[in-house]
C-alpha cells in the first residue's frame, strides 16, 4: 500500500465511499419501496374504502334520517320530495357499492362485503314498508313499523358497515405500522451507514492525506534543499563564469601575443630555411673543393713517391761516388805508404798522395753529406707521403662530413619549410583559439547571466516550495525554509572563498529573500543544512 500512487489511494478511498453510499442507497431504496407499497395500500385501498364505507354509512344514516323526516312530514309534496331524495340516495348507494365491490381483493373483505350487501335489501324492504305507511299518512303506524322492523335492519346494516370499516381500518393500521417499521429500519440503516461512511471516509482520507502529506513534505523538503543548493551553485557558477570570462580575455590577449610571436618565428624559420639552402650550396662547393683537394693530394702522393724513387736512385749514385771516394782514399793511402817507403825520394809523391786523399775524403764527405741530405729528403718525402695520406684521409672525412652536412642542411631546409608550414597552421589554430576564447568569454558572460536567472528561478522555486509546504501544512516548513537560506551562511563559506566571491554569493543568495536571510541569521543549527552547504563549495572554490 506504501507504493501506491496518490491517484490509486484516492480511487480506493472514493471507491470505498461509493460502495458504502451504494449500499446505503440500496438499503434506503428497499425501505422506501416498502413504504411506498404500504402507503400505496393505504392510499389506494384502505383510505378510499374507508371513505367509501364512510359515505355509505353517511348515506345510510341520511336515508334513515330522511325516512324519519318522511314519517314526520305531513304534506304529500314534502313526502314526494323525500322520496326523491331517498331514490337519489339509493342510487348513490348503489354506485358506491358497485365502486367498492370493484376494489375487493381479499376473501375476508369479500365475506364482510357479502354480508353487507345481503343486509341492504332487508333494510330497503323494511324502509319501503315504513315509507308505504308514511305515504298513506299513517305516521303512527309507520313510526311503529320503523321502530319494530326498520331499526333492526338498520342496526344490522350499520353493523355490517362498521365491520367493514373496522376491517379496512385494521388493514390500514397494519400498513401504517409496517410503514413505521420500514421508516425506523431505514433511519437506523441510514444512521449506521452514515457512521460507517464517516468512519471509513475519515480513516481513508486520513491515510491518503497522511501518505500524500508525508511524500509531499519529503519532496518539498528535498526541493527546498535542492533550491538552496541550486542557488548556491548558481552563485558559484556565476562567479566561476565571470572568472572564466576574465581568464578568457586574458587568454585572448596572450593568444594575440602568441600569434605575433609565431609570426616572428615564422619569418625566422623562413630565414633559417633560406640559410640552410645556402648552407647546402656551400656544402656542395666545399665537397667539390674537397674532391679537388683529394685529387691533388693523390697527385702529390704520386709525385712524392716519384721523388722517393729519384732519391733512391740518387742515393745509389751517391753510394757509388762514396765507393769511388773510398777506393780513391785507399789508393791514396797506399800511395802515401809507398811514398813513405821511398823515403826522401817519395816526398813529393807523398804530397800528391795526400792531396788525392784529401780530394777523396772531400768527395766522400760531400757524398756523405749529400747522402744524408738525400736520406733526409727521402725521410721528409715519406713523411710528406704519410701526411698527404693523412690529409687525403682527412679530406675524405671532410668529404663525408660535408656530405652529411649537405644532407643535414637539406633536412634542415625541408624541416624549416615544414616548420614554417606548421607555424602557419599553428597560427591559424591560434587565431581559431582566439575566436574560441572570445566565444568562451561571451559564453561565460551568458552563463553568468544564466546563473543569475537560475538563482532567481531557485528563489521562485523556494517560494513555490514554501507555498507547497504551507499547503502540506507541515511542521517542517519553517525548518526547510531555514535550510534553504542556510547554504549562504557567510562565515562558513568565507573560509574557502575570496572576499569578492563571498560578497557575490551572499548578495546573490540574499537578494531575493531578505526575510529568509533574517531567518538564516537566527541561531539555528542543523547538521543536514550544513552538510548541504558543504558539498558543492569546498572543491570548487579551492581552485580559485
Amino acid at each position, binding site marked *: 500500500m506504501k507504493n501506491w500512487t496518490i491517484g490509486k489511494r484516492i480511487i480506493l478511498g472514493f471507491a470505498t465511499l461509493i460502495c458504502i453510499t451504494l449500499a446505503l442507497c440500496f438499503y434506503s431504496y428497499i425501505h422506501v419501496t416498502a413504504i411506498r407499497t404500504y402507503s400505496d395500500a393505504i392510499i389506494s385501498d384502505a383510505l378510499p374504502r374507508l371513505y367509501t364505507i364512510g359515505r355509505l354509512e353517511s348515506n345510510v344514516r341520511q336515508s334513515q334520517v330522511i325516512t324519519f323526516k318522511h314519517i314526520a312530514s305531513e304534506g304529500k309534496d314534502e313526502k314526494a320530495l323525500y322520496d326523491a331524495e331517498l331514490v337519489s340516495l339509493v342510487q348513490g348507494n348503489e354506485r358506491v357499492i358497485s365502486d367498492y365491490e370493484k376494489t375487493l381483493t381479499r376473501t375476508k373483505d369479500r365475506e364482510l362485503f357479502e354480508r353487507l350487501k345481503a343486509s341492504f335489501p332487508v333494510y330497503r324492504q323494511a324502509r319501503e314498508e315504513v315509507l308505504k305507511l308514511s305515504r298513506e299518512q299513517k305516521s303512527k303506524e309507520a313510526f311503529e313499523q320503523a321502530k319494530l322492523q326498520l331499526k333492526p335492519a338498520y342496526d344490522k346494516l350499520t353493523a355490517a358497515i362498521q365491520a367493514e370499516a373496522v376491517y379496512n381500518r385494521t388493514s390500514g393500521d397494519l400498513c401504517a405500522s409496517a410503514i413505521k417499521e420500514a421508516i425506523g429500519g431505514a433511519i437506523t440503516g441510514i444512521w449506521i451507514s452514515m457512521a460507517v461512511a464517516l468512519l471509513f471516509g475519515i480513516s481513508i482520507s486520513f491515510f491518503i492525506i497522511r501518505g500524500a502529506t508525508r511524500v509531499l513534505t519529503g519532496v518539498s523538503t528535498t526541493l527546498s534543499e535542492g533550491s538552496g543548493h541550486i542557488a548556491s551553485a548558481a552563485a558559484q557558477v556565476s562567479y566561476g563564469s565571470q572568472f572564466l570570462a576574465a581568464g578568457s580575455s586574458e587568454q585572448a590577449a596572450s593568444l594575440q601575443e602568441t600569434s605575433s610571436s609565431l609570426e616572428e618565428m615564422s619569418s625566422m624559420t623562413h630565414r633559417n630555411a633560406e640559410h640552410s639552402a645556402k648552407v647546402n650550396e656551400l656544402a656542395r662547393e666545399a665537397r667539390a673543393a674537397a674532391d679537388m683537394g683529394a685529387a691533388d693530394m693523390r697527385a702529390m702522393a704520386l709525385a712524392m713517391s716519384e721523388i722517393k724513387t729519384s732519391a733512391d736512385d740518387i742515393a745509389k749514385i751517391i753510394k757509388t761516388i762514396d765507393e769511388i771516394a*773510398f*777506393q780513391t*782514399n*785507399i789508393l791514396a*793511402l*797506399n800511395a*802515401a*805508404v809507398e811514398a*813513405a*817507403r821511398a823515403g826522401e825520394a817519395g816526398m813529393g809523391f*807523398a804530397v800528391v*798522395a*795526400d792531396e788525392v*786523399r784529401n780530394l777523396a775524403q772531400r768527395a766522400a764527405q760531400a757524398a756523405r753529406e749529400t747522402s744524408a741530405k738525400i736520406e733526409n729528403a727521402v725521410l721528409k718525402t715519406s713523411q710528406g707521403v704519410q701526411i698527404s695520406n693523412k690529409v687525403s684521409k682527412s679530406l675524405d672525412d671532410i668529404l663525408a662530413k660535408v656530405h652529411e652536412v649537405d644532407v643535414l642542411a637539406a633536412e634542415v631546409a625541408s624541416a624549416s619549410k615544414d616548420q614554417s608550414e606548421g607555424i602557419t597552421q599553428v597560427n591559424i589554430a591560434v587565431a581559431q583559439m582566439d575566436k574560441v576564447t572570445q566565444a568562451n568569454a561571451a559564453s561565460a558572460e551568458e552563463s553568468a547571466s544564466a546563473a543569475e536567472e537560475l538563482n532567481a528561478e531557485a528563489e521562485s522555486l523556494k517560494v513555490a516550495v514554501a507555498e507547497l509546504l504551507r499547503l502540506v501544512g507541515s511542521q517542517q516548513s519553517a525548518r526547510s525554509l531555514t535550510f534553504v537560506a542556510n547554504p549562504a551562511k557567510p562565515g562558513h563559506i568565507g573560509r574557502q572563498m575570496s572576499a569578492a566571491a563571498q560578497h557575490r554569493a551572499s548578495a546573490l543568495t540574499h537578494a531575493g529573500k531578505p526575510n529568509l536571510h533574517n531567518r538564516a541569521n537566527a541561531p539555528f543549527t542543523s547538521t543536514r543544512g550544513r552538510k548541504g552547504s558543504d558539498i558543492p563549495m569546498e572543491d570548487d572554490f579551492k581552485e580559485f
Partner: protein
Amino acid sequence: MTRIEATPGKTSLAGKYLAFLLNRESYGIPVLKVLEIIRMTAITPVPRMPAYVKGVINLRGKIIPIIDLCAKLGLEHAASTEHACLVIVQVPGPENRPIHLGLAVDAVEEVCQLAAGDIEETPDFGSALDTACILAVAKVRNAVKTLLDIDYILAAQTVPPLLRTL
C-alpha cells in the same frame, strides 16, 4: 825478439804512422810495416784456428793469413763494416824471415807524420796489467791515438806457429 828490442827510445818513435780505427778508436802502426791497403774481400776460413784468425785470402796469387785485430786485442767489433779494410803488414817471422799478414781493421784513417812532441810514453796502469802491445800514445788534434807494437802482437808467442809457416 825481446821486449827491450820492441820498445826503442822515445826519439826513434817519431815518424809516419798509418792510423786506422778499431771499434771507433784510433790506433796507429808505423807506416814502414805496411805493405799495402786493400778493401775487405771474401776471407776463406781455415779450420782449427784461434778465434782471432779469420782465415786466408788470395792476394794476387799469394796466400795471406788474416788476423782479426779486434779479437786479438780483446776489443769489441765495430757495428758498421762498410769501410772495413785489410792492412797487409810485413813482420819478422821465424829465423828473421819476413812474413806477410793481413790485419782486419774497421777503417783506415790516414798516414800521419807524428813529431816526437806528440808522442807520450805508455801511461802506467799498474804493474799487474800488461801494456806490452802498446808502443806509446800519440796526441793528434785533441784526440789520442794508441800506437801499437805490431811486431810484438804478431810475434811467435802470440801467434800460433802454423801461421808463421805460411
